[in-house]
């Protein structure tokens, strides 16, 4: 009798786990996410030429977002210019601000501000703005870190923030330090 109750309990736990997995899969839009290969800077924003040329923030942001989003989406396509009505979900992001005074961690914190819209079937199903600042990490005795390295930390964290939001997207969300 006790064994059959235990077996029944085990089966109900398995059923619940399967249901949860199915729900997560459904939330993730069938498991397909389309991302830009490089997240562009918004036209007209002030970004120093050195940061534009040397830091490769557009590519790094795309790559970090891809890496972090792969946990929730079965397929993450990196496309040159994704279309908003492509199968699955399409995230279109842009970098709308970069705060980066030259001089690495001697010249203070560096920040990146991004915005994004998530499309599914030609309709916007979510939008966000996100900001992250970093001073390089490691405390006052850490070795010198260049401006690009600090900005890379920002976009890495932003990639994680975006991936977390992608698991259950909402409209007009604020991520990271944009809250």
């Amino acid at each position, binding site marked *: 009798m006790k064994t059959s109750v235990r077996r029944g309990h085990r089966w109900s736990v398995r059923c619940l786990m399967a249901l949860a997995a199915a729900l997560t899969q459904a939330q993730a839009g069938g498991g397909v996410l389309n991302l830009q290969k490089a997240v562009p800077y*918004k036209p007209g924003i002030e970004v120093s030429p050195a940061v534009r040329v040397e830091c490769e923030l557009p590519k790094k942001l795309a790559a970090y977002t891809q890496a972090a989003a792969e946990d929730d989406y079965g397929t993450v396509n990196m496309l040159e210019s994704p279309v908003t009505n492509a199968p699955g979900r399409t995230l279109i992001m842009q970098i*709308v*601000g970069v705060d980066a005074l030259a001089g690495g961690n001697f010249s203070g914190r560096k920040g990146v501000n991004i915005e994004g819209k998530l499309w599914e079937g030609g309709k916007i199903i979510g939008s966000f703005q996100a900001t992250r600042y970093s001073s390089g990490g490691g405390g006052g005795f850490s070795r010198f870190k260049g401006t690009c390295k600090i900005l890379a930390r920002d976009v890495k964290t932003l990639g994680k923030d975006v991936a977390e939001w992608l698991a259950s997207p909402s409209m007009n969300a604020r991520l990271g330090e944009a809250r």
Partner: protein
Amino acid sequence: MACRPIISCTAGRGAGRWLMPACLVLVLAGCQQSPPREASTLVMQQRVAFPGMAPDHAAADEGCDVTRRLADDIQYYARPHFSRIAVADTVSAKTPGKALYVEVLDFSGGGRKIAVEGMLWDNGVEVGSFIAQDTAWRSTSGCMALTSVSRVLGKRIAHWLAAPTRNARLGPLR
């Protein structure tokens, strides 16, 4: 009523009969009444007004989207105080219900310093007015400075909206 379970329940092998009701009580104890919201709708502009916009301001507005950003920030931080926030192209004393009008008074340093004024009407009767200002002291990029100033102003205005007064001065203007 927003429920936040304060404990996760797993029935023990023998004591399941007693554990489940006890857990239910604990879970229900985690349900708390949401903070009271004013059951009203606020109507505000989709973009705040910027009557004195000069050509260099227009460039900043195009790149950093100051007028939309300010309206978005006020909306975002005012959400807890209203059951609904509706946006309209224009807002005036003639707008029915609670209506907020915000206008940029001063915009300098590419958005490093912004001053705004606003008025709140309730069915055409002025129930509040304010002037708010903020300055970003450290930022290399105009858009990042503007973003942080806009957020600070949005928070201050939203806080004022919870208990509006006339001729309020928000921020360092006080």
